């Protein structure tokens, strides 16, 4: 009812001569539905329908090459539980996501704090740190594959200072570390810019007041900066965590999941099963697992908001 009053008086009456039910309010509702319709139809067709189909497929045995689409109930899930490769895949996924999120957020924060100092020329450095975001992802990754080769640029630079680097992409630990660092360098500029905007939004008076009270730099950072930018930290961490679970191109170009299966993360394993081994039923089951992980992590982070996000808009 309040909605009627919120529309201006002149628009409440129906048009003279028009049918009585065709009120301005109804017309506005129709406009709302029509404006949202493309997005709603897209959500139904390209998000919700595939989500439903994903669960449906996961209950079937379905090899695209062999043909046949037969109901097998929970068999794919039993296979999932017993898949000897899965523990390794989940370990790689966890290592990648934790490493990426930790390095990305801490580096973004450090860079943002450095750029927030009153220095001339910070715009130049901001541009530099942000520039990889504008470089084509696969181009960036190809260049790094090239630099990280045994006789590539990184080891070339190391040899100039007399050090000998490992064959980065061929060792299990260095391959995972390389994939993480390459991905962080590519995208850390995004989070850095968001942190920088948040830092610049912290009222200066808060710092001045606490300096008068005798607080040191570290105390000021912990007691003022962190709480004030905590909403941004939460938002960027959610986006970065979900993004870390989607990483495919970098893995495919840098390591193809290797050496062995040490960098085969869940998305890559799902791609291999569905599109290289043509096992759509098991691919869909792995998709369900990926969806469950994204869902659980997002809910956990959303819950954490109550604990440590101090002020909310």
């Amino acid at each position, binding site marked *: 009812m309040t909605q009627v009053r919120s529309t201006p008086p002149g628009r409440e009456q129906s048009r003279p001569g028009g049918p009585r039910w065709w009120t301005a309010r109804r017309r*506005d509702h129709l406009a709302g539905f029509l*404006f949202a319709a493309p997005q*709603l139809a*897209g959500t139904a067709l390209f*998000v919700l329908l595939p989500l439903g189909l994903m669960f449906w497929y996961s209950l079937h045995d379905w090899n695209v090459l062999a043909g046949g689409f037969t109901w097998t109930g929970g068999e794919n899930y039993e296979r999932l539980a017993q898949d000897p490769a899965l523990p390794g895949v989940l370990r790689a996924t966890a290592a990648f996501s934790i490493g990426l999120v930790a390095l990305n957020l801490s580096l973004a924060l450090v860079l943002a704090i450095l750029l927030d100092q009153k220095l001339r020329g910070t715009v130049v450095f901001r541009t530099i740190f942000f*520039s990889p975001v504008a470089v084509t992802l696969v181009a960036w990754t190809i260049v790094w594959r090239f*630099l990280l080769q045994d006789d590539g640029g990184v080891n070339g630079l190391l040899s100039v200072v007399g050090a000998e680097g490992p064959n980065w992409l061929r060792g299990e630990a260095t391959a995972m570390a390389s994939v993480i660092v390459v991905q962080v360098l590519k995208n850390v500029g995004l989070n850095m810019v968001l942190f920088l905007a948040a830092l610049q939004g912290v009222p200066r008076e808060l710092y001045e007041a606490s300096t008068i009270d005798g607080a040191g730099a570290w105390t000021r950072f912990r007691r003022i900066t962190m709480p004030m930018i905590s909403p941004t930290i939460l938002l960027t961490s959610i986006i970065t965590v979900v993004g870390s679970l989607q990483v495919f191109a970098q893995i495919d170009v840098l390591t193809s999941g290797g050496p062995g299966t040490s960098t085969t993360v869940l998305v890559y394993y799902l791609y291999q099963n569905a599109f290289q081994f043509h096992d759509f039923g098991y691919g869909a089951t792995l998709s369900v697992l990926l969806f469950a992980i994204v869902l659980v992590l997002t809910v956990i982070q959303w819950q954490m908001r109550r604990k440590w996000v101090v002020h909310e*808009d």
Partner: protein
Amino acid sequence: MKTERRTTARSRRARLALYGLLCVLAVPFVFPTWWMVTSSLKPANEIFAFPPSILPSDPSFAAYGRVFEFAPFAAQYLNSMYIAAAVTVGTLAVSSLAGYAFARIRFPGHNLLFLVVLVGLLIPSEVTIVPLFQLFNGLGLVDTHWPLLLIPVFGAPSVLSTLIMRQFFIALPAEVEEAGRMDGLGRFGLYWRIALPLSRPALGAVAIFSFLHSWNLYLEPVVFLSTPEKFTIPQALTQFTDAYGGPMWDVQLSAATLSALPVLIVFVIAQRQFVEGLAHTGLKG
């Protein structure tokens, strides 16, 4: 007087240290791009020279010519350009309309429907790639550009754009639309004539996001496309291999440079709007 001089000396030292730190940190961000561009101008044997040469000794564009010999790279470049442009325009239209509706029109169920749309944030297209493939397969649209156009504009990737637009439109004061109502503008008029012109920063951020997202898209082309003439740049870049499957570095680096440099130059020129557009959206939290 004396203490003042001492603090300026100390602050100058601190400033120098800060500049030094920033320069060291900048190396891994700049070096790959620098290396890509200069190596593309080197002959293949110089690319692997020890110690590495910072500038090509005898710059040559020969590898660039071979990019177009080995692959239909011009067609692939055009594919990426037109798909990214169409996705950008489409996303701007879909997400600004939906964002406006969810922010400013109180139609029945608008909160519930907005929550349903937000589900897309939890379901990146990587999760649903198997059913999406089957869906487009059923429509006979595999090995066409339709999946690369439709999924980003209408599917999960556009949800973040809609969220940005909604946050922006919510913050517009009600008075700015009052004047338009007095002039007899309908809903579309209010959206087109008043809300949209005021939302340039948000539109800019959405345009950048959706362009880069489409330009970088890799999984979808790999899954959906099989004809080289239909490939987009990211997929095309991985195809420059010799008869033994080893990469042809000089050609690959030239193609990579061609794909990255135009966008990078646009970014450097427009970087103020670029960066500030991103920072001043609802994303800031």
